[in-house]
């Protein structure tokens, strides 16, 4: 028979200590020997690419991943160098970042906030990623951005268009190159007024989630400022596939313009349904009925097929741009993969280069040093003309493209034509603009 000296009180104390230790997130404890989270100490540095590899945006995620792989190749001195040759900053030399070879790990966001956070957390904790980037959804971007802020790593957002990403949900460790809902509205409204007149009655169908709300608000306020009247705005469930019951009443409302604040599968289906109902063949209030899609994506336009012809929208970038940066990127991407890059691919490629350049200029991977290097940074040669990473909200300010579905496409990629390059001044807003109010950047976090 053995005797143990463990008392009940001692067991409880030990258990409580061990429990509280285990309960502390490893994110906040594991790197205590370093100056900041995941400080790279060897000859390489790891970046985390968090993109949708499954789910409805998997094709967009695949294009983002191609762009990231191309960026890594160029950063490490491979390929033709792409936009490194046209980038206004010459800090990057094609020898990695600060002389360290760039490696990467990938995560699958599944376009679900919880899955995206889990994959980002895994890349930070297990793979030692010093920066997280990617995504095709504002919900995901906001969730991962908050995680990166807590963890003390930089988040370079991928495709996220909601005002909130750099508005009420902005974070000091997060940066967005992609444009936003406000910019879409500000760029589109004058073009629409010019093409369709200032006396229009608009009917909005809006996806019932955060991005839909901010896009509707932005387009409404911009078009109403031009003289348009909004006769109705109807929320549609995100899971809706057949929009006929929402589209059929549009003509009865007296509206002569339908604005589809939808993205992805929602946009493909609502636009297809609207064209099926023959809305574009109708005359209302003595005018031809028109449809507008505020945010275009080439990959989504492909899904809608011929229905996009002649329909206005906005986009962050398009492969047909003729500036040297865009041409260099299209050449690199097209030669490697056999087709032109999407806007999602472009923003992800650029974000990787901008991060690497900021580290190089800062001389450190420390998030606060990188953030300081990015804040207020002006650059050119990356496809959108002169661009500013505004310090107040970490939003890039650059020209915005107004596009239209092409009437006579020459290939499956040639779906959109650029109608106007809206100058940056027209889409710039004050940091405290009402559409972006309610949040604070806070202070950057180095983690560790």
């Amino acid at each position, binding site marked *: 028979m053995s005797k143990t000296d463990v008392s009940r009180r001692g067991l409880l104390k030990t258990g409580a200590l061990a429990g509280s230790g285990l309960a502390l997130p490893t994110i906040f404890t594991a790197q205590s020997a370093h100056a900041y989270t995941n400080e790279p100490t060897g000859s390489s540095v790891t970046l985390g690419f968090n993109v949708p590899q499954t789910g409805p945006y998997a094709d967009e995620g695949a294009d983002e991943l191609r762009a990231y792989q191309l960026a890594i190749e160029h950063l490490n001195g491979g390929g033709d160098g792409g936009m490194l040759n046209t980038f206004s900053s010459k800090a990057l030399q094609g020898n990695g970042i600060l002389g360290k070879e760039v490696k990467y790990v990938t995560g699958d966001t599944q376009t679900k906030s919880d899955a995206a956070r889990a994959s980002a957390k895994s890349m930070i904790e297990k793979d030692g990623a010093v920066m997280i980037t990617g995504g095709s959804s504002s919900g995901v971007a906001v969730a991962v951005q908050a995680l990166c802020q807590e963890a003390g790593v930089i988040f370079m957002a991928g495709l996220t268009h909601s005002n909130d990403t750099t508005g009420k949900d902005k974070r000091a460790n997060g940066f967005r190159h992609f444009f936003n809902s406000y910019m879409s509205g500000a760029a589109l409204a004058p073009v629409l007024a010019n093409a369709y007149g200032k006396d229009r009655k608009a009917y909005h169908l809006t996806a019932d989630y955060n991005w839909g709300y901010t896009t509707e608000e932005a387009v409404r306020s911009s078009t109403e400022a031009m003289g348009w009247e909004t006769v109705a705005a109807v929320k549609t469930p995100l899971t809706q596939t057949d929009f006929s019951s929402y589209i059929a009443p549009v*003509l009865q409302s007296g509206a002569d313009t339908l604005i589809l604040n939808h993205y992805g599968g929602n946009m493909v289906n609502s636009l297809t349904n609207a064209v099926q109902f023959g809305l574009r063949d109708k005359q209302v209030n003595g005018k031809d009925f028109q449809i507008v899609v505020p945010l275009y994506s080439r990959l989504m336009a492909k899904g809608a*097929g011929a229905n996009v012809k002649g329909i206005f929208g906005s986009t962050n970038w398009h492969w047909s741009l003729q500036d040297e940066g865009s041409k260099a990127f299209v050449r690199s991407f*097209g030669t490697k993969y056999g087709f032109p890059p999407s806007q999602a691919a472009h923003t992800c490629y650029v974000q990787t280069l901008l991060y690497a350049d900021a580290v190089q200029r800062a001389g450190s991977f420390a998030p606060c040093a990188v953030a300081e290097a990015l804040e207020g940074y002006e650059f050119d040669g990356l496809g959108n003309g002169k661009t500013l990473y505004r310090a107040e909200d970490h939003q890039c300010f650059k020209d915005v493209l107004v596009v239209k579905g092409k009437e006579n496409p020459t290939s499956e990629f040639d779906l959109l034509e650029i109608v106007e390059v809206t100058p940056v001044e027209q889409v710039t807003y004050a940091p405290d603009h009402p559409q972006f109010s309610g949040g604070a950047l806070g202070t950057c976090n180095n983690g560790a």
Partner: protein
Amino acid sequence: MDAIILQILNGLDKGSAYALIALGLTLIFGTLGVVNFAHGALFMIGAFCAVTLSRILTLSHTVIDETKTDFLGNPLKVDVPYVHDIFGIAAGNAIIDWAVPLAILFAIPVMILVGVVMERGLIKHFYKRPHADQILVTFGLAIVLQEVIKYFYGANPIPTPAPAAFKGSFDFGAAIGFDPNLIIYPYWRIIYFLFATLIIGGVFAFLQFTTFGMVVRAGMADRETVGLLGINIDKRFTIMFGIAAAVAGLAGVMYTPINSPNYHMGMDFLVLSFVVVVVGGMGSLPGAVLAGFLLGVLESFASMREVIDIIPGINQIIIYLVAIIILLTRPRGLMGRKGVMED
């Protein structure tokens, strides 16, 4: 009044899809006693039969057009479909244009084969297992099937338009004395409704007026007794599974011009179709059809702006709300019979 007529029309075509899928589900449940959660995947495979045929018809060889350049500045490679070479450009284009209706002929044998293979290869092993096991295995199968489709066709929707002859919409309002443009309805949706009616009528006629159908109905009522009479009811039920798969597949084929098909479209319909089956009454074929149209119309009404303004969010819950009310007042559904799923 015009708004009400419009929403009834809308509900009828939406209800057509629900009714066709629910009819297949009920056929399988009524004959084999299996709760088939892979039925939505059959709808999706049917849609991809149309996509596949469309791709077959547009199989092309490449011709270099020296007068134009591609995005890299190289001479443009132009795809020329083989059907242009075989039938000439005009006839070739007409064949490609009619890909969706032609896909009906393509989909029928494919879907019957898929259904029979599914039943013989997997589902027959679960006949005597609890319904929970059947649901799990068929749900798993549905996920596998949609991932296979995604692997080959990608995640983005694929536009599969209706023939040019059916583009545009019919001014229903003007035809019945209302102002023009008040009640418009796309030609293809009218075709879809008529097609669904034809298929539903065909299935009922097959069961009602053929010897095969009579045996199947007898088997649905009392499988054991039919077996004791020396009739191989299992073989007939397998064929019925194939027919149910074909019904779902044809619903999918004809749905492709309404919404561009994607790998997830089956799941979008599956849950609603199960609600339709339960509301109609488990095992009741007329109940499934009736509930399909009923819930389709109700869903359309709930999507009206005037209704949403009064009860926000009603458009998202109406079907489930009605299901709860019907099941509380008529626990066996609208046309359910005593003894079905009550053991």
